[in-house]
């Protein structure tokens, strides 16, 4: 048995192989939940009856007209629920509400022979509403003191002492927008009662076990009577961690009541108006620096807009508080977090899970304060990096803090930062109507679920008599390449070629009690479990081989399908032959594997402990060019260096880094959620509820030059094959684009002034920012604090 991080010679981990489903993806043969409906006879389609008010009481619900619509089979209402009328885990998300809590809240679901019939049926359902006062902005919620869940405060040192006698003190306010997940595949579920009498649900879910639990409690069944399968998702990004449960429950309820399979697929408008998004945040802050630009104290209040129900807002806030330090040591900290309750979609997990919002606060502060401190922003950032031996405000030692400095130094060189800074300055001096900006920002991101119990995983590995391998694990595939990595881990741990390993879809009847595939932890946790299962099997095989080869079991090596005595590959036997022989010697050829992350503890009330196994580090340099007439901009070049430990699968990891970066930059520049905040009839309606009004990054936003590298010699001991998580951390590298835009906007005005920038930094926002800079050019310079 080897340690968790050590890699055997010639293992499949570390090979740059394509996604395990790539050839299915490109030919259209990869199946997603909603592709399965055509295989079923008698399929019903579900359509929601969405309320047209942000807040209202349902006074009447009459479905009789709907039942007269041709093709309508049944209308589901609260009266149909045999179990709990609840779609969440906090008991605050009625599946069929009597009080409408946000614009679009579904009050009933119609089942029809076709989607069109169900839609017409939904139109015919008569609902009476008593409209109630609503809160649709975070400011309104703050003014009304409308909060939900626990309020928590992160503290270290003595905040009063921190500000006393500080050389520089600044304060400000900052509001950042949310983000729509916009997974290309909208939420979908397909349910039927199978031949064994169990409720079988195909669901596009990142958290099959929880989908199973919610469906079971809605149906009034035990978990053992419900199975959830997730083939793969067309993107998740956190948006399918909690949100799919209710839709799966509706489909399951419909199938139980009608005896027919029920398909529920949200169209894009429904998905955008029904499901939660990244939390918008409001921050009020005060910060102190010493003469050298070292951070002394940070006091802040973060208010997230949680929407109508609690969902994951509490852990999202916890992660925001745990990342407000980003890469910087701050001796005195007092940061309060609270969750506003508003009449909007219930905001939820989204890649980074509050980390990006917390980090953006400190990066915004540094970006705004650097000119006032007379320091280049990159210098201010570097001066404040954690040093080895220092701990975070919540008391966790910053493991491998030296990697920040290493990464930063390497990237400044490979990204040619100094020379390009001079080029940008020369360009700006020569171009009155166009300015460039160049910025570098770091990321330090804690890996593990803050919720300690989630840091466990299971796997089931079968070796068949012919030597082929089937693996099951609790993680879901949403495009992040988890299954590819898991195949590599299994092939490595068993010592067989990757082609011998097949991975079966994620199912709750194979591996139970799984955690959400979230928090970037999929490979760490499930990889640990698969490796455990494979090693159990391999140990039994080694015992058999030892007899045949005449060596001690500890001296048997498994490598690419060959089993041989240590030092004598020429004397090897075929893995398949060994498996065959082992079977006849009555050897168990399958195993359940298990992994729990050791060494974690977290006191969520005191906001103290060691919630993270380790930190993932990265840094990015972005260069932008801004048009002074319009605020339109483009990203000229981006250089990234990311610490993924020893990569399990470099092609996959590079893809995660690039995709995460672009998604983060999208959040901060282009993607803008706009709600009707007027007092008009559409108050609370999401105005950007389509691909035509909510714009994602497309080809035109890709940096013209895009250099991405992984930190070398970065083994993370204590993690499967020395690797590190990669799903979320790169998203926050997108902050570099925003900081570059700030620099470019500021370049339209005099130096030494603070430059504010709205988030998202749309062309309009950048235009107003550079207009402010231009105005300052003609005005006397303001005092600096």
């Amino acid at each position, binding site marked *: 048995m080897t340690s968790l991080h050590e890699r055997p010679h010639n293992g499949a981990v570390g090979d740059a192989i*394509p996604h395990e489903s790539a050839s299915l993806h490109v*030919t*259209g043969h990869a199946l997603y939940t909603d592709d399965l409906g055509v295989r079923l006879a008698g399929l019903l389609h579900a359509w929601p009856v969405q309320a047209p008010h942000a807040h209202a009481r349902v006074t009447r619900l009459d479905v009789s007209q709907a039942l007269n619509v041709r093709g309508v089979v049944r209308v589901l209402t609260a009266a149909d629920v045999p179990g709990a009328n609840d779609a969440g885990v906090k008991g605050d998300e009625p599946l069929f509400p009597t009080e409408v809590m946000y614009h679009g809240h579904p009050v009933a679901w119609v089942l029809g022979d076709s989607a069109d019939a169900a839609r017409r049926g939904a139109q015919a359902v008569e609902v009476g509403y008593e409209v109630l006062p609503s809160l649709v902005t975070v400011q309104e919620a703050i003014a009304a003191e409308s909060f939900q869940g626990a309020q928590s405060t992160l503290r270290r040192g003595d905040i009063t002492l921190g500000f006393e006698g500080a050389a520089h003190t600044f304060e400000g306010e900052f509001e950042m927008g949310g983000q729509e997940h916009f*997974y290309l595949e909208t939420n979908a579920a397909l349910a039927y009662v199978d031949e064994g009498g169990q409720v079988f649900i195909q669901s596009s879910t990142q958290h099959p076990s929880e989908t199973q639990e919610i469906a079971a409690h809605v149906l009034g069944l035990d978990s053992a009577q419900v199975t959830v399968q997730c083939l793969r998702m067309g993107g998740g990004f956190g948006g399918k961690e909690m949100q799919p449960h209710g839709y799966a429950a509706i489909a399951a309820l419909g199938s139980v009541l009608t005896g027919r399979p029920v398909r529920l697929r949200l169209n894009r408008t429904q998905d955008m108006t029904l499901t939660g998004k990244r939390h918008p945040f409001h921050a009020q802050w005060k910060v102190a620096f010493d003469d050298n630009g070292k951070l002394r104290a940070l006091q802040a209040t973060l208010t997230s807009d949680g929407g109508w129900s609690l969902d994951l807002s509490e852990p999202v806030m916890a992660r925001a508080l745990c990342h407000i330090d980003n890469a910087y040591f701050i001796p005195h900290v007092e940061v309060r977090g609270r969750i506003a309750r508003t009449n909007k979609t219930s905001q939820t997990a989204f890649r980074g899970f509050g980390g990006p919002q917390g980090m953006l606060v400190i990066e915004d502060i540094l970006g705004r304060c650097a000119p006032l401190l007379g320091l280049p922003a990159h210098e201010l950032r570097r001066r404040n990096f954690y040093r080895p031996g220092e701990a975070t405000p919540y008391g966790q030692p910053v493991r491998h803090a030296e990697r920040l400095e290493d990464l930063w130094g390497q990237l400044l060189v490979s990204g040619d930062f100094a020379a390009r800074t001079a080029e940008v300055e020369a360009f700006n001096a020569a171009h009155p109507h166009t300015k460039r900006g160049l910025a570098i920002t770091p990321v330090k991101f804690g890996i593990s679920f803050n919720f300690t119990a989630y840091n466990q995983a299971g796997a089931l590995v079968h070796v068949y008599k012919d030597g082929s391998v089937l693996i099951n694990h609790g993680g879901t595939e949403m*495009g992040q390449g988890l299954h590819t990595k898991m195949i590599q881990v299994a092939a490595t741990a068993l010592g067989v070629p990757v082609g011998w390993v097949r991975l079966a879809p994620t199912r709750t009847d194979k591996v139970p009690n799984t955690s959400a595939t979230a928090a970037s932890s999929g490979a760490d946790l499930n990889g640990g479990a698969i490796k455990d299962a494979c090693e159990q099997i391999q140990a039994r095989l080694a015992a058999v081989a030892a007899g045949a080869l005449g060596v001690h079991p500890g001296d048997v090596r498994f490598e690419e399908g060959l089993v041989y005595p240590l030092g004598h590959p020429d004397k090897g036997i075929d893995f398949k032959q060994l498996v065959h022989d082992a079977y006849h010697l009555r050897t168990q050829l399958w195993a359940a594997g298990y992994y729990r992350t050791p060494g974690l503890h977290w006191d969520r009330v005191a906001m103290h402990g060691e919630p993270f196994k380790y930190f993932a580090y990265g840094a990015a340099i972005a260069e932008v060019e801004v048009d002074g007439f319009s605020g339109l901009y483009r990203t000229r070049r981006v250089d990234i260096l990311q610490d993924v430990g020893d990569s399990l699968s470099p092609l996959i990891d590079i893809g995660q880094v690039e995709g995460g*970066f672009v998604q983060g930059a999208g959040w901060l520049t282009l993607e803008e959620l706009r709600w009707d905040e007027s007092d008009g009839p559409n108050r609370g309606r999401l105005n950007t509820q389509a*691909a035509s009004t909510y714009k994602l*990054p497309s080809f*035109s936003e*890709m940096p013209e030059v895009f250099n991405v590298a992984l930190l070398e010699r970065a083994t993370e001991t204590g993690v499967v094959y020395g690797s590190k998580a990669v799903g979320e951390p790169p998203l926050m590298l997108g902050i570099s684009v925003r900081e570059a835009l700030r620099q470019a906007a500021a370049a339209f005005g005099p130096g030494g002034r603070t430059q504010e920038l709205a988030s998202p930094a749309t062309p309009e926002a950048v235009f107003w920012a550079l207009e402010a800079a231009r105005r300052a050019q003609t005005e006397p310079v303001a005092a600096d604090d």
Partner: protein
Amino acid sequence: MDSFTVTVNGEPRTVHGARPHETLLGWLRDGGLTGCKEGCAEGECGACAVLVSRPDGQGGTRLESVNACLLLLPAMNGQEVITAEGLGSPTDLHPVQRELAVRGGSQCGYCTPGFVVSMAAEYYRPERRDGEHHAPNGFDIHALSGNLCRCTGYRPIQDAAYALDTPPQGDPLATRRSRPAPTPPPTRLSGPDGAFYRPADLAQALDLLAEHPDAKLLAGGTDWGVEVNLRHARADVTIAVDGLDELRELEWHSDHVRLGAGLNLSELERRLDGRIPLMAEWFPQFASRLIRNSATLGGNLGTASPIGDSPPTLLALDASLVLASRTGEREVPLADFFRGYRQTDLGGGELIRAIKVPLPLAPLTGFYKYAKRRFDDISSVAVGIALELDGDRVRRVRIGLGGVAATPLRAVETEQALVGQPWTETTVREAARLLRREGTPLSDHRASAEYRAAMLEQTLLKFFHERRDVARV
């Protein structure tokens, strides 16, 4: 007619009892071709892209990518469609599929079949030449601007695109191009959900239109498809006019050029080949290649959206419209065509037959579009400018505006203020301040009224700044 045939991936498939608002996408998926995905149902994401065979004008076929979510199934009568499944299989990948797969071009894979199709259209584009479009293999990467990927960040997709060679000898689809494309046959379908007609010629179309003055005219369908899918609009009668030869002319005359209202924008772009520089500047900024392969000038003008991008361009070009009805034809200046929010001068029984752009063209032109995203976004403000100088003075200027009023409009006051004035920074600044006050912009989710007004002013300054050196020559 009760049934018709659509050829899918080389195999004829019979359509029975098609409804007039059923989409090609829905039909393909119901038929088991689930590689074709619905990501947005409004032609924005490209996950539903398919190839269609279209005449290349020289007796052969072009394979063009279009959004299957916006194509109505009855309009596909007799047509040929190729989906990602038809290009290759997991054990026999098409070159486009192979490059995407090995380079990490798919992550979740949901958008991937659509990318494969858009890339295949570029792969088979006959004009593709090494070095064009700043690409080693002449691959126009903006042909993918109508395909969204939420996972990859696009770099590996671009790498795959640039790695593509020319189709090898014997490639079946490359060979397919040398044979004629199917022409859409006249179609008459009617049922409880409405009627769908594809007339044989213009006369028949006008007769039908006279009979059904409220009929929905269908050209590219890129606007109507959105109405059908997202707002569940339904028409009693739909008349497809995009295939009519009479609406597909492109003729150069001594004093004007006549553009058929039924030509799709990609065709128009290709056939004009830069000879109307303002339109050449405008085309790439109009939606995406997937949309331009369907959308027509007639459709964009007929929907009369205040934020359509063709009106500012054509207003600057001083274009007029040829309107046809059973009683004859008449010509209306475009500036007089828009009557109110989504209202036009089109009478019952009338359709837009052609657009006339007067010649000679003004020598200095510019098209400016302001939006959150650089490509394939709807403008918050769009401005077309065409200017002719007489020495240092402005002889003639036309400025078309979109996004600042209930209709597209011409900035008449600003035009008048500029005519006869010296083309200098001082007069331009004054005129720009005037331009700022044209229109009655609103605040919405795209932009604030203040930004829209500011962009009007800034556009003229930018135009002056950019064209100043040109003007001196």
